């Protein structure tokens, strides 16, 4: 167990290093100049050259890269090019709570919407209820989140005034309903389909037939016995989503004006704000890697057949 954890930590470090390097090089490869964004559209050539010098953008790539990695190893993510006085680390840390709330809310919606629907559809396989659930989940999967978000804002917040239009306030849950639903709707549909498929497979397995044959009540078969079988793929999905959402939910945060990591990343990319882009990518990667690690640990708890050996 100890060696397994150590090996995983080593792998995580390598993955993160690769991700950050790739992000840095990709931004460098874009044929655009951060100094133009910084100096404004009317800046002269001389001014842009002077800003290049100030930011060290006139140095060769390898030198910029080494400097960047060196600072990173000392824990310094640098200062945003665009939001001048803002340290990248502090800005991301400030955005983290919002993203955390949205991510948790989105996951809750996904599970609430998806899992019961999937189980019920599997249980009533082939019936009209199954078809309706499958059809709705298809719509949920196809609806682009920004469209759904704008639609919800227009009707639920603007026309009917049931929820606030933008941002976060008090009570926070009131402000979170629409954004988290937007986030969870598409995922919920995905969960419904996945749950249905896994459940159908489980319900066909010999142990369920055995349970039925000996007259076990259906709800016990369904919830106590079969549900445990679909828990592993479910937890894998939740883990992946959670890691992914924590990295920032770009569209939902932007549409609903939430001060999260996703919107930071979005603004950074449109402004070619290299330190901020690399910072948000690094955070996203850390979340995904860490959550994956935790999910792997959880497997052994849920399924005693899984052993963590080195």
């Amino acid at each position: 167990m100890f060696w397994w954890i150590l090996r995983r930590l080593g792998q995580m470090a390598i993955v993160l290093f690769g991700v950050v390097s790739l992000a840095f090089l990709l931004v460098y490869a874009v044929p655009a100049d951060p100094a133009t964004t910084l100096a404004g559209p009317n800046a002269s050539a001389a001014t842009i050259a002077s800003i290049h010098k100030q930011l060290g953008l006139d140095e060769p790539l390898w030198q910029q890269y080494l400097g960047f990695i060196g600072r990173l190893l000392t824990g310094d993510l640098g200062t945003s090019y665009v939001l001048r006085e803002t340290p990248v680390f502090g800005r991301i840390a400030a955005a983290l709570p919002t993203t955390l709330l949205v991510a948790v809310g989105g996951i809750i919606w996904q599970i609430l919407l998806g899992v019961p629907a999937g189980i019920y559809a599997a249980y009533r396989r082939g019936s009209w209820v199954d078809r309706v659930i499958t059809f709705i989940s298809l719509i949920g999967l196809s609806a682009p989140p920004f469209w759904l978000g704008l639609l919800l804002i227009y009707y639920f917040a603007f026309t009917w005034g049931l929820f606030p239009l933008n941002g976060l306030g008090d009570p926070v849950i009131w402000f979170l309903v629409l954004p988290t639903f937007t986030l969870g709707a598409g995922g919920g549909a995905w969960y419904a389909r996945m749950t249905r498929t896994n459940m159908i497979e489980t319900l066909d397995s010999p142990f369920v037939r055995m349970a039925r044959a000996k007259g076990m009540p259906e709800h016990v078969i369904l919830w106590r016995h079969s549900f445990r079988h679909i828990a592993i793929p479910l937890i894998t999905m939740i883990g992946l989503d959670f890691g992914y959402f924590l990295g920032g939910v770009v569209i939902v945060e932007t549409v609903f004006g939430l001060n999260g990591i996703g919107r930071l990343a979005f603004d950074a990319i449109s402004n070619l704000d290299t330190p901020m882009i690399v910072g948000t990518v690094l955070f996203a990667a850390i979340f995904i890697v860490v959550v994956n690690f935790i999910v792997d640990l959880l497997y052994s708890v849920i399924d005693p057949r899984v052993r963590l050996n080195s």
Partner: protein
Amino acid sequence: MKRNVRVTLLGAALAIALTACAPTTSNTGGDDSGTSADAALYGGTIETAAASDPETFDPAVCTGATCWNIMRMVFDRMYDYKGETSELKLQAAEDFPEVSDDGLTYTMKLKEGLTFSNGDPVTAKDVAYSYARVLDPATQAGLAEFWKGIAGAEEYAANPTGLPSGIEVVDDLTLKITLTSPNSSFKYVLAMPAGSIIPEGSGDTIGTEPVGSGPFTLTDFTPGVEVNLDRNADYWDSPRPYVDGVHMTLGVDPDNQVLMLQKGDIDLMGSPIPPAKFLQVTTDAKLADQIVEIEKPSIYYLAMNMTTAPFDNPKVREAISYAFDRDALLKLVNGQGKPATEFIPPGVLGYSGDDMTHGKDVEKAKKLLAEAGYPNGLETQMFAWNVAPFSALAPQMQQDLKAIGITVDLQTLAPNTFAELAGSGKAPLALTFWVADYPEGSDFLQALMSCATAVPQGHNYAYYCNEKMDASVQEALAATDPDVATEKYTEASELMLSENPVVPLYFGTKTEIHGPTVGGYFPQPIWGWDMAEYWKTDGEKSRS
């Protein structure tokens, strides 16, 4: 991906918010700002929203939309723009500058008794420091170029200690600036954000803890969430500002800003009305009283790179000048502008009122192409921004060029990629625009078409260079009589357009919407909100 379009609009908002414009307005709801004080009411908070965080609170550095509006609230400059005009008014200065006969020396006096928000008096030393700081490369001022006409600017940039030789503190309230050549537009430079007066020595902290002598003071800023500004109760221009404070919600999508305004959650939008909502908003009878339109001193144009074939051939360029129907193009951009007749827009010194452009004439264009040696047409590439209005214009222009026999490979690019590629001369055709930094022709002819700018990242996408034109612009800058200046600018414009390095398409307008309880609102062509002049119509008759 559709989202990308909306995203880049945000970027465009940035550019557009650095907007400028002309004195004439078709104002449906505004009052004359000069006489509106009688009707003004006191108290309340003006609620606003912005798409992005203020980039900085440092006036020398700010070029973005959000900080731009804040700069005008927090800082005073010697001069500022009056109401909805592009004329200057006195702000921190006691009088307009006394200019020596050779046009090189500007002597300016501060008002007595001005104080910064930290209680310190505003002195000529602070002004000198604020100006010198713009020239220090470490400041990274985006618009430093405008200040380089000050004597000793270059030496100072190389060794930024003390003051440049051209800036002299005469006494506590008097400042003398010497230029290297006469420049009638220099007074406008002093009214730009970078001309804001900050306390001497505050350069290191100004970006986070701004101290100014403006009508408002910054009370708090929560990144990604909000900005709060309080009325400066000691402001010299009493009874302004009328409102007690300004609140700015950050990170609000422009579509959402429109909804918030319609719902009464905000009074003013920081972003322009998004194109998708434009017609819906501007044709809504309920909102008619809340909409103002103003000419912005801007030109949308097509540049042809004269250093590459086939645009090194004057006949080809002339042919293209006959390719477009300006009225048809304007329909594609919700009519937000009027057909360009020359390169310098109306409201800007140097606008002649003459028509120097060519209307659409397909036959003539084809004939010119044939004479140029391309009887069967040619193929080329056009670069354009991937945001409104260019995303609407470019496909139509591609078709118009097809009609005269030119097959265009259209490249639509993110704004900063466009600047990089077109700026480095890789664009045979570049569809672009320019909004005035100040209302003088030099900001168009010198900033975009001079030999000095025909370099990479120099904005002269045509790489046009004609020393005769440059000389005319210099003469215009040296002229003290505006009529003489206009004549010189007209000469320069005619000469330049006769060689067709660019096809001027249209002069832009901007449309703004304000909440029903904002009193005295007017749009400003050059600057952003003039918050000290607005009030809340649900305010008190006197200050309690």
